[in-house]
């Protein structure tokens, strides 16, 4: 992910620089992959607000039943 390549984010716990990795999200029994910044040591993931309010919210909306 181009905008993540030069990320200045570091893991608060491990102080490692976050790297872009494919992450699996699960919602309502469906699994999705998306590239996010992750700590290479502890595996914690950074979910930026634009992803939470953007694509993740869209997926949620599409899967919401009537």
């Amino acid at each position, binding site marked *: 992910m181009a905008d993540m390549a030069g990320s200045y984010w570091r893991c608060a716990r491990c102080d490692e620089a976050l790297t872009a990795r494919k992450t699996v999200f699960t919602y309502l029994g469906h699994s999705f992959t998306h590239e996010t910044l992750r700590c290479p040591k502890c595996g914690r993931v950074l979910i930026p607000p634009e992803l939470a309010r953007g*694509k993740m919210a869209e997926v949620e909306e599409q899967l919401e039943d009537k």
Partner: protein
Amino acid sequence: MKTNKIRGREARADAPGNLSGNKRRTGVEAVYGTVSVCPVCLKRVDAAIVGRDGGYFMEKTCDEHGFFSTVVWRGDDPPFEGWGEIKSAAPDSRPALGCPGACGLCAGHLQKTCCALVEVTHRCNLRCPVCFADSGVARVSARLSVETLYARFRKLAAAGSTFVQLSGGEPTTRDDLPEIVAAAKRAGCEYVQLNSNGIRLGAEPEYTRALAEAGLDFVFMQFDGVRDDIYERLRGRPLFDIKRAAIDACAEQYLGVTLVPTIAPGINDGDIGAILEFGFRRSPAVRGVHFQPISYFGRYPGAPGDGGRITLPEIMRAIDSQTGGKVKISDLLPSACDHPRCGFHGDFAVLPNNTLLKLTKKGKAASSSCCDDAHLRNRKFVARRWKRAPAGAEEDTAVGADDYRDMDGFLARVKSHGFTITCMAFQDAYNLDLERLRRCSLHVFDGRRTVPFCARYITARRMP
């Protein structure tokens, strides 16, 4: 099925319906009591839903016209009593005494309007042997002006009923239908749906374009099968090529089409899988299939026997078996916006190899609700699926959309090729159950009263 036992789930002293008549009948399980009408005089009568002979039946007796029994559910897959959760109404809540004869929504009604149907004409360019509205070529129509209709749309929009279906008769018999569509949009209707047989849409693509330009959102198209003999029997003439032309004309304008088959035993109940496969192949122009088991109101040839009926579970089993398990019963959920036994729905996306991405997950359905926002959720759901993405959007979002586990690929495909399989089992004078009726969210608005669809069109049996 358990037998010879009164379960009496709703057989309280204050409950509608009289179950006592079934207590001593061997092999009969009374499930609940309700209120219905006599199919001959439409007078209110107590009714019981009873289990027997591998199915469930409505039984009722009119003092004047005698005993009536009508099948309402055949078989146990899915099970009658396990199909959907019904939230209880208030303990003292009963259908109003005037229900359904003096209907206009009242305090006894438990659901708000999801879709408001507005009749724009009584004329039709077909003369189908079965027609809920008893429309016809020669029928004189009180032709409502665009201004009058605009006032109705304004009333609806002001009340929050912003999903309008233009119905009739056949709305496309009106040359000024594009103006009516524009009036509905101008009045604040968010979604305008056209209920049509499609004949004029295919024959006059410029008329279809005018409707799209006026703001029409999607089309509910009568579509009973993929063979002409089906149309000859149900509609009186061959129409398959005409239906295809109508879908093409709508596709040209990016108007989403939902196919609406009336399913009649012995005519097209063996074609349910073929209708679905046709729909899948025409995705994204076709946005879904909405099955309607044949019901008997308006114009119909004669008093229906049980052989003339196909019930909700039979439609579901046919979908499963006739698609070779591509769509399973477990992919379908009870209606949440109406009474669960009024319908079902399944949510899918059609993939390039004509397989399905299944979006509906068992156990995620909301219960049939009263006094909440189910009507708003349903409106949003159907609009999201039935409205087609505008020109260009499908091509753009298809880029890289070959991995549907990828969030971008998933979103692109679901938005462009979403596909619903839905069903609504209308009630007629033979099987009307007021417990179902008062959870109805499809309402007809005549400018003064808002009436549930089945109450609006209920028709007394014509005596020979």
